[in-house]
């Protein structure tokens, strides 16, 4: 009985399918539309799989921050405007989760927006644009389609 009570207490106090993702930089309300120049579209899509009804497989904190930084930096931009965060389970993922009784539960996270150059003054603090060098060395950045050509 004590074990069941302890288990129930643990389950009640802890959450499952927990996602915890940081966003890089700072969200500002003082940047006017005239202070930004759109240079492209941001589309970050990340899939994460939870196991055992979501008790195993907590998301890494850099789940969205790393690819977001990478896309902004690849454009030589400063930030993102009109940010929209989405998370969902596709129909196939839902079927998989149901069939496995929650033992295997993929979920997709997406961040969309406009990649912009910002003309407003920079806030004091550390830059948030650095890309993890180790990941770049591993070559799993997926940015092979970004080609810069220069003619002499």
């Amino acid at each position, binding site marked *: 009985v004590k074990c069941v009570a302890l288990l129930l207490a643990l389950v009640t106090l802890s959450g499952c399918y927990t996602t915890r993702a940081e966003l890089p930089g700072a969200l500002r309300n003082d940047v006017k539309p005239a202070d*930004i120049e759109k240079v492209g579209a941001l589309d970050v899509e990340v899939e994460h799989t939870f196991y055992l009804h979501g008790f195993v497989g907590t998301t890494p904190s850099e789940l969205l921050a790393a690819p977001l930084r990478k896309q902004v930096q690849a454009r030589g931009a400063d930030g993102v405007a009109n940010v929209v*965060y989405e998370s969902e389970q596709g129909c196939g993922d839902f079927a998989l989760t149901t069939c496995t009784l929650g033992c295997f539960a993929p979920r997709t996270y997406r961040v969309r927006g406009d990649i912009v150059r910002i003309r407003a*003054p920079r806030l004091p603090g550390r830059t948030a644009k650095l890309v993890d060098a180790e990941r770049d060395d591993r070559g799993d950045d997926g940015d092979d389609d970004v080609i810069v050509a220069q003619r002499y």
Partner: protein
Amino acid sequence: MTRFLFGTCALSAMLVATSCTHVEVALPGVLDLRSDASELAGDRRPSTTPVEVEREGMDATFGGAGPSAAGPGVSVEGRVWWLASFFRLADGGVDEGLRAVLGAHAPGGNNASRALRNVVVTEEITGAESIAFYCLLPVPCAAAFLPTRTVRWTATRVVIPVEPVPVEPTAPVDEVTP
């Protein structure tokens, strides 16, 4: 028979095209990656959250706690309900709450020139909801509304100084040098 097949195909197409437990949040303001605003002081001014986005009592229980502030730390919580995980029934949205804590509601007023740093999004099915779902499984009508998903945005609110540091020129990271 044809009608049945047509209905089945239409229902299947709808289910395939629809995503389950979809959560969408539009963030106000501009995400500036040039700085994490770590050297700015926390904003301890009293929040001027509009009454319409505050939640109390049953509203908070079913729709999430909404916007709240403890010193410079701010939090916006919403809870989303679906029917059988497909059809969104109620959305304790956080969009308005985020606008309120960032200060986009009253530009030029008490809320002017603010920023949020250390922005973190947390999504979870709470343990209590999981237990309620499994306990209510024998009652199909009740279990169809569970589990809900709680979305929480937390951040530290800072005051933007009147004269921030000058703009630094930025260059593309993939720049090729001859």
